[in-house]
């Protein structure tokens, strides 16, 4: 039972959503060196932006997805300009930035909760269920799997082949030297926030469509997302991708095992915690982690 094809499908979908969140977290961590706790709320924000388009305005969810990507990316840019840029120019340390990100996160979450209330909400879309190797997969899930795979390849292309992507890696390696190359680091940071934020927005829509919308949507998956980042090796893009699927599988297999043993599946979130703790004890550098060079 634990290794049924259904579990593989569910794990891949969970993993795909984690990937999108973890990549954004990793990008911001790599370049700005702090753990961005408001990332959870970017996920939620994206989900509700798509809700406006899809339910309030009655348009197709695909438009909601695109708008969610753009608006969440822009929200990332705005918070950077209003808060993090000011902290940077003051020379604030990463702890201050992290605490600021918790603060902004709370603010965004409260605004969402005030605007839409705490009740569960659902997108409006037609979905078809297909039989797949003895399990079932929905059209939405197929869409999630394909589009997140495409996004991963697109990002790989961005980082390895484009001028902006290479500049991002250069800033992450050595910000002072990047400036000495004439790279406008502030300008590149805007792209980091836009892409990282936009991916979080997409993840929010996927999660919302696959489950339901609730103001805690992002907060619920922030911990697994951090577990992914740490398991992958903090700051490692490719590590995070592998780790996202590892965690997706662990959670879904874990849930199957829990129900086999007649234990409540409410323990599901504990699986990410356990993995997080085990990694920190056994291999703090993660799957692809390297020791920080100074």
């Amino acid at each position, binding site marked *: 039972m634990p290794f049924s094809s259904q579990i593989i499908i569910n794990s891949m979908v969970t993993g795909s959503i984690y990937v999108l969140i973890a990549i954004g977290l990793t990008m911001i961590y790599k370049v700005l060196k702090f753990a961005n706790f408001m990332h959870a709320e970017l996920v939620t924000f994206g989900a509700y932006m798509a809700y406006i388009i899809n339910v309030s305005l009655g348009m197709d969810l695909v438009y909601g997805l695109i708008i969610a990507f753009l608006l969440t990316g822009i929200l990332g840019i705005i918070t950077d300009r209003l808060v993090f840029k000011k902290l940077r120019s003051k020379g604030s340390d990463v702890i201050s930035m992290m605490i600021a990100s918790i603060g902004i996160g709370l603010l965004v979450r409260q605004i969402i909760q005030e605007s839409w209330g705490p009740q569960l909400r659902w997108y409006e879309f037609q979905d078809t269920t297909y039989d797949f190797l003895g399990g079932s997969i929905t059209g939405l899930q197929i869409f999630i799997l394909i589009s997140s795979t495409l996004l991963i390849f697109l990002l790989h292309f961005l980082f390895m082949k484009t*001028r902006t992507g*290479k*500049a991002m*890696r*250069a800033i*992450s*390696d*050595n910000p*002072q*030297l*990047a*400036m*000495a*190359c*004439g*790279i*406008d*680091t502030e300008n590149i940071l805007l792209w980091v926030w836009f892409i990282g934020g936009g991916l979080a927005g997409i993840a929010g829509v996927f999660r919302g469509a696959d489950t339901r919308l609730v103001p805690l949507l992002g907060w619920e998956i922030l911990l697994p997302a951090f577990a992914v980042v740490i398991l992958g090796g903090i700051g490692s893009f490719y590590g995070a991708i592998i780790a996202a699927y590892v965690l997706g599988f662990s959670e879904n297999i874990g849930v199957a095992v829990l129900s086999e043993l007649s234990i409540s599946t409410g323990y599901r979130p504990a699986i990410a915690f356990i993995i997080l703790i085990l990694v920190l004890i056994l291999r703090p550098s993660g799957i692809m982690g390297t020791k920080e*060079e100074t």
Partner: protein
Amino acid sequence: MLTVESLSSGYGQMNVVNDISINISQGEIVVIIGPNGCGKSTLLKTIFGLIKPYSGKMIFKGEDITGSRPFDLVGKGMGFVPQIDNVFPNLSVMENIEMGGYLEKKPDFSEIFDFFPILHDKKKEKARSLSGGERQMLAMARALMTRPGLILLDEPSAGLAPKMVGMLMEKIKEIGKTRSSVILVEQNVKSALSIADRGYIMVMGRKVFEGKADEILDHKEIGRLYLGKKDACEP
């Protein structure tokens, strides 16, 4: 090319560079020597805008650049190779050079590889896997990609084997001849002076002597006082 007038700077309350005036003309190699911890690197960082000066004035190509940011100075034609952290370790050799040419519309990579053939063979390797000497070459290649009129080199020979130092100095001499004026901060006094046109000696954040390179080399008193033996400034 560059005129620095009575420049003072430092870190917060700690005054490191005191009332320094130097200048460099087109095509010149000027070396700044002096014992460790006496403000040579701080002077370079101040010129390049990484440290804000307390007072003084800097004129680069006829333009007042006092207080300009590094980003702007690169655009104006100044290059800087820091002593440490002077490459992008996780980027390949090629990518490091590409980043150097970030502002160039059509960067000429083949030309820079002709100048540093050793880098051509290691194009695809990560910069972190290079040897110390190769790393310095890469750092210079990166800085030269912006086609600077003036390049600031902060102790490029630090930690290198003597044979490598010789090779590096030859390269720097060639850079001065064909590409860019060079301000070189060095601890390897003799080899630096042998390729330089002029030199300044800095002690305790102050300029104590300036003159032609061979003058300094031949000057017994200076050699004895500042160069040959370790002095009060050395920790």
